[in-house]
């Protein structure tokens, strides 16, 4: 009797150990060498754009010979994300890269920095965090998107409705993009903005929101989203409604978004170089830890903006010209992505200290 009980508890303990160790315990070889370990915390897991950032961070870790621990909450919530950062700090990582979607994370992150663990922010900027930030110039990219949409619907003489959707109202970077888009659209006195409406992050809810918005405004000249799922959703909505009149525009170069551009159901998508947003924070952390460079104050490094339509691709940092097909191939191939960005790794990323600007440049 006792034996069988012991065996059962033992089996359960073994199963739990196997489960807990299944994913990412360092191999014996890694344990022998005292490699640096970098924590990488994203605001949501399971999003194609965020996955591109994670892939780039892992490429950086591989190139630099460091361990990387990637984590993040399943649903975007600042408190859960801050807890993940604090857990990594307690686990003894050497540095942490994190997006900062919430103001409630700021004090907690500064406490981690004060304890001696360097932090680099990416993708979402936390105002007041004493750490550099790698991301796009959010207001400026909004202005670019707004201007491109305006050009497509008739320029400053355009008359009609433009629907604007924000998947995460209150997220500072998205609010900046929104401000930029609205600023550009204002130049056409005849344009009426519908929204900005909350179009949700979840892909299914996002599609439903755009479907509803188009149904309510069938005469809209354009639909402009600010988040990764929007272009794909807008494309599907246009296709389902057999609508060829409404311009679809938004952000990020996920495989789904590029497909929508390719089939003509959406028209413009701005990229924010997920490769740089993933690779550069890891590089900065490793460089600053190894060379004892202090990074405990706010700063901004521009990750650049990519401008993509079905007929043209404009890349930042004087990167080699790309065709739309090249871009589609890169969206699904890590090897091609790494190879393409090699000049950026050897130049812009390596010289990150020269490219560090005041944080106010982010929203200029």
């Amino acid at each position, binding site marked *: 009797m006792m034996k069988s009980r012991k065996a059962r508890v033992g089996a359960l303990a073994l199963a*739990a150990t196997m489960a*807990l160790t299944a994913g*990412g315990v360092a191999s014996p070889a890694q344990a022998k060498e005292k490699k640096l370990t970098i924590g990488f915390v994203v605001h949501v897991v399971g999003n194609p754009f965020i996955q591109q950032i994670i892939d780039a961070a892992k490429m950086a870790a591989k190139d630099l010979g460091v361990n990387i621990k990637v*984590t993040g909450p399943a649903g975007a919530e*600042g408190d859960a994300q801050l807890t993940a950062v604090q*857990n990594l700090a*307690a686990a003894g990582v050497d540095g942490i890269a994190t997006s900062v979607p919430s103001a*409630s994370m700021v004090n907690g992150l500064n406490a981690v920095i004060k304890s001696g663990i360097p932090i680099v922010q990416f993708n979402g900027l936390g105002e007041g965090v004493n750490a550099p930030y790698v991301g796009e110039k959010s207001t400026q990219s909004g202005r670019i998107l707004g201007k491109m949409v305006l050009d497509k619907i008739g320029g400053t003489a355009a008359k009609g409705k433009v629907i604007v959707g924000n998947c995460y*109202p209150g997220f500072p970077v998205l609010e900046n993009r929104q401000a930029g888009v609205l600023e550009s659209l204002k130049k056409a006195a005849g344009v009426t903005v519908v929204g900005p409406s909350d179009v949700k992050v979840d892909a299914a809810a996002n599609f439903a929101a755009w479907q509803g918005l188009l149904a309510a405004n069938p005469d809209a000249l354009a639909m402009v989203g600010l988040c990764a799922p929007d272009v794909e959703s807008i494309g599907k909505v246009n296709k389902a409604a057999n609508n060829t009149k409404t311009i679809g525009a938004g952000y990020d170069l996920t495989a789904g978004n590029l497909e929508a551009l390719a089939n003509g159901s959406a028209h413009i998508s701005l990229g924010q170089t997920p490769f740089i947003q993933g690779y550069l924070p890891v590089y900065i952390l490793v460089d600053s830890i190894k060379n004892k460079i202090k990074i405990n104050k706010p700063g901004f490094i521009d990750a650049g903006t990519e401008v993509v339509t079905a007929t043209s691709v404009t890349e930042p940092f004087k990167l080699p010209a790309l065709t739309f097909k090249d871009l589609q191939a890169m969206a699904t191939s890590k090897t091609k992505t790494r190879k393409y960005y090699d000049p950026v790794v050897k130049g812009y990323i390596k010289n990150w200290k020269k490219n560090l600007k005041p944080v106010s440049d982010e929203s200029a």
Partner: protein
Amino acid sequence: MTNSGAAQGSRKFKLPEETSVLVALIVLIGIVGALRPTFLKPTNLLNLAASYAIAALLAGCIVFLLSMGEIDLSFGWILNLSAVLAGISMIAGAPVWVGIVIGVAAGTAMGALNGVLTVFMRLPLIIVTLGTASVFQGVSLISNNSGSVVPTDERITQHVFFRALGGSIDTPVPIILIFVVLCFIGLHLLLHKTRFGYRILAIGSNPEAARLAGIPTKKIKIQVCALMGAVSGVGGVLFLGFRGAVDPSTGGQMLLPVVAAAIIGGTPLSGGAGTIWGSLIGAMIVGVIGVGVVFIGIDAVWGTLVTGLVILFAIGVDQVVRVRKKRAS
């Protein structure tokens, strides 16, 4: 000792019902600690426990609703709106203590509203709160124009409430933990040592029999909903003090871990029974799993799967111990 002797011993000394889930927690802590010994450092454990304290407090209170056979889907947004209202009033010039009272009072009112609606519409609380959750979220977004509430005035940030909860005042144990443990003692006594608590359990066991026995079921339902709202309001102001800000998304993802903590802790969904201390241990299990996944370095892609497997494991250990206890008694 022979088996019969062991059985005799267990008859004399009845182990608390939370024993099984406590065993599961100890096993989990042991596994993570064995793999990553730094996990067991007391300062780490205390700080990490503090991070999960608010969710634990809500888990402790949702036991009242589960014991009554009800479930509230809106408490995360009650927490959010309470914190937003408290923060806005402080920023507008109200003294910090007044802001705290406003937050807790607002939470209580929202909870009471849930109770009144469920009683007068004769609908289960889960259906009512499907609607009110969105209402509270919407009012919160409107209240601060969908932005974060960040008190920056030194009058607020240097107030003892913010300094104590935010960690500016050094204490051996985080203040928030002490506060939450005291709340748990209060909640335990309320559920298991008062007439109010017995009535809740009676309603959960058999609502019709409770009504026929003269228990004012409608009044009790409203009171329990108001209690859930009040505790969510307390959670909201604690969050504001602990993190120093409230975001539009705060509280939105709390439902699952809080309900999971209560259920893992041993409170059945069917009503009629509940354990406050079990919910605390359940919340700690949820916390240890979250922390363990990070400590061990399980990749984000695998993290969700592993979390699910470990929850199943914890429930499995709990069940094994329960069955053993039942057989022994």
